[in-house]
């Protein structure tokens, strides 16, 4: 070991209940770690056309060169797998403490293969893997499961688990890890398909560094930047530090871009009651942080439950304030918090389930569905919480909705696909493509479906660029996608990049691992990963026709004050998509040209129809 990566991973065969150490091959090391490792390993090892819920799928859980070090805001770990929700390659992230613990196990990650016949908990102590029966925790929620593991097997385990939704292979089920979540893409369902209820890590190894002195200097410099940002009253990260991620609700509302009532409106008259400031001022609140992070943007609040009790619960984060709040016409902060808590109990992505519920409520309003014993109405707590439980249990109409909004629309029919607010079956994140054209392009072209992590949200919502313009958006989106992919090889927190000069990333890589990489090469690595993901998706059967937003975005103006009756022009949209493909070196159908793949050094992955 010459740096912060251990150059070894554990392969865990869930079918046989065995594990082996896998030494990282030389050709993987230039992919740095995190998303880079995950994307290449999955591309090399599975057929993209497989059923994501079959035992042929693999789960690649990785850390990066800065995980477990003193570098601020590098707590996250990354999972790459084939998504049962979108049918695409998936990368999903969670912060908290499990990433550092994986590193302390003396490994760069684990690869889960096959599928168990019985439900299991995986215990990873350094590089030793034990399969134990999951019988004691079956049916439990995520927090309950992880608490059981800590209380019965060791408080020093760092844990991840699925809830009942994962057990029932709900396609939008998430994987939870203590106070954080691998939210998008249905990882909980993949774990469920492998009958892995939980995993727990406990390590005794340290973390080496290639250049301790330089790393210490960089860390101090970076920490000062982060702390200075937190100290500034109006700084974005400073706002997150003081109010959590819901701090900016006022701006998006005033810009008429707060998706409301299944994205029919761009404003919500109760937006203030579900904002970060409101929770901070009206609920007993504590901040929570991830490993080594001075921002502590997470929140837990004490709130009233629907049955009259009181409980502590994490969040809601900003995206959930939209998905389980404005999108459902839910302006009650207690009901929102209760819905958010139920997503943790069941183990479900709060974004996609909110979008799916809002879709269902509109279907009911149009007479397309009904459910015995449950009113289906916007703004009705019983409807919201009831549907959430039914999806988590795959019960009644919930069994159809558990498939995700696009698949559910196919079953429900009646033109409902037009208002299922998703891309590739993944629910929209909290931003309106009709109000933010570049963000819409990022949703549509995302390799994992309706993703906001690589969208030009800040530039558009703050008015740095005209959010309704199509000009320059293709360039902006491509750049964002490539940069963020590069940064996700280090698994930096998405907020880290908001304040850190990009030049620090190659410097950190060199000081941590000894690998020399220029900033341009770092960006190119991001582009390489983006193209490899795209090739995976093409081979999985997804083409240009899947890089599209639902019809509502092209034929129904946004209602509400400040929303300017915005609607996308379909033809202009298609021109912009073609412009984006051209910038990427792809043909009209989104297929990367051989020359582009040669330039990126990945020609062996070429896709030919």
């Amino acid at each position, binding site marked *: 070991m010459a740096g912060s990566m251990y150059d070894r991973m554990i392969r865990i065969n869930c079918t046989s209940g065995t594990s082996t150490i896998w030494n990282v091959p030389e050709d993987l090391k230039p992919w740095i770690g995190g998303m880079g490792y995950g994307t290449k390993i999955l591309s090399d090892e599975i057929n993209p056309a497989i059923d994501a819920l079959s035992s042929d799928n693999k789960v690649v859980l990785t850390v990066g060169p800065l995980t477990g070090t003193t570098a601020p805001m590098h707590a996250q770990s990354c999972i790459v797998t084939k998504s049962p929700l979108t049918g695409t390659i998936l990368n999903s992230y969670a912060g908290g403490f499990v990433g550092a613990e994986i590193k302390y196990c003396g490994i760069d990650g684990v690869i889960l293969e096959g599928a168990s016949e019985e439900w299991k908990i995986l215990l990873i102590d350094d590089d030793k893997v034990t399969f134990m029966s999951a019988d004691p925790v079956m049916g439990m929620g995520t927090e309950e499961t992880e608490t059981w593991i800590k209380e019965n097997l060791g408080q020093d385990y760092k844990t991840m688990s699925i809830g009942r939704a994962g057990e029932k292979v709900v396609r939008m089920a998430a994987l939870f890890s203590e106070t954080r979540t691998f939210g998008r893409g249905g990882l909980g369902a993949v774990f469920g398909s492998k009958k892995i209820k939980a995993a727990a890590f406990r390590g005794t190894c340290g973390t080496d560094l290639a250049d301790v002195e330089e790393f210490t200097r960089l860390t101090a410099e970076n920490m000062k930047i982060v702390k200075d940002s937190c100290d*500034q*009253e*109006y*700084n*974005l990260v*400073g*706002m*997150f530090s003081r*109010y*959590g*991620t819901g*701090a*900016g*609700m*006022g*701006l*998006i*509302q*005033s*810009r*008429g871009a707060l998706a409301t009532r299944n994205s029919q409106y761009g404003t919500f008259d109760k937006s*203030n009651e579900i*904002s970060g*400031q409101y929770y901070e*001022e009206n609920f007993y609140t504590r901040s929570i942080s991830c490993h080594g992070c001075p921002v502590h*943007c997470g929140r837990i609040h004490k709130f009233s439950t629907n049955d009259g009790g009181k409980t502590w619960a994490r969040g809601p*984060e*900003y*995206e959930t304030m939209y998905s389980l709040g404005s999108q459902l016409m839910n302006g009650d902060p207690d009901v929102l918090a209760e819905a958010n808590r139920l997503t943790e109990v069941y183990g479900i992505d709060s974004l996609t389930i909110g979008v799916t519920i809002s879709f269902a409520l509109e279907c009911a309003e149009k007479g397309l569905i009904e459910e015995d014993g449950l009113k289906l109405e916007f703004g009705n707590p019983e409807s919201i919480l009831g549907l959430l439980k039914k999806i988590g249990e795959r019960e009644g109409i919930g069994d159809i909705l558990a498939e995700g909004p696009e698949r559910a629309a196919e079953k429900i029919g009646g033109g409902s696909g037009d208002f299922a607010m998703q891309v590739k079956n993944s629910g929209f*994140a*909290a*931003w309106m493509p009709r109000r933010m054209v570049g963000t819409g392009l990022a949703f549509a072209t995302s390799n994992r479906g309706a993703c*906001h992590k690589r969208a030009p*949200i*800040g530039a558009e*919502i*703050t*008015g*740095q660029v005209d959010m*309704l313009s199509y000009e320059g958006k293709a360039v902006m989106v491509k750049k964002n996608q490539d940069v963020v992919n590069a940064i996700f090889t280090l698994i930096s927190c*998405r*907020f880290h990049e*908001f304040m850190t000069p990009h030049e620090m990333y190659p410097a950190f890589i060199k000081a941590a691992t000894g690998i020399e990489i220029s900033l341009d090469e770092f960006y190119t690595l991001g582009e390489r990963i983006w193209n490899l993901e795209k090739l995976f998706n093409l081979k999985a059967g997804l083409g240009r026709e899947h890089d599209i937003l639902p019809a509502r975005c092209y034929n129904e103006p946004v209602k509400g*004050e*400040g*929303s*300017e*009756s915005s609607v996308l022009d379909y033809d202009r949209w298609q021109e912009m998509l073609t412009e984006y493909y051209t910038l990427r070196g792809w043909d009209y159908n989104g297929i990367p040209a051989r020359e582009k793949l040669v330039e990126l050094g990945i020609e062996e992955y070429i896709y030919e129809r």
Partner: protein
Amino acid sequence: MKAVIEFVGYFRTKTGMERFIYDFDDDSATVRDIIIEAEKALRDREFVILRDGGLIDGVLVFHRKANDGMERIFTPDTPLREIGNSIVLANLMGGG
């Protein structure tokens, strides 16, 4: 000339008001001028958003367009009469 600052999000909490209204003697007042008046009036709320003549990082100023959309104002020297005598103050925004 009557001019208005509309407070959004965090600013509404900080100032404790939805809008600040000020009457100028003439119509040459700028965005900076009304912010200065608001800073004076809201001193007890520690409302300070100008530094060295410019806006503090993270403070966003918009004006409402005729169709009710909003457009960012980058310079505090902008005359208020050019933007309907009204501005909107907001803070930076992200997601999570």
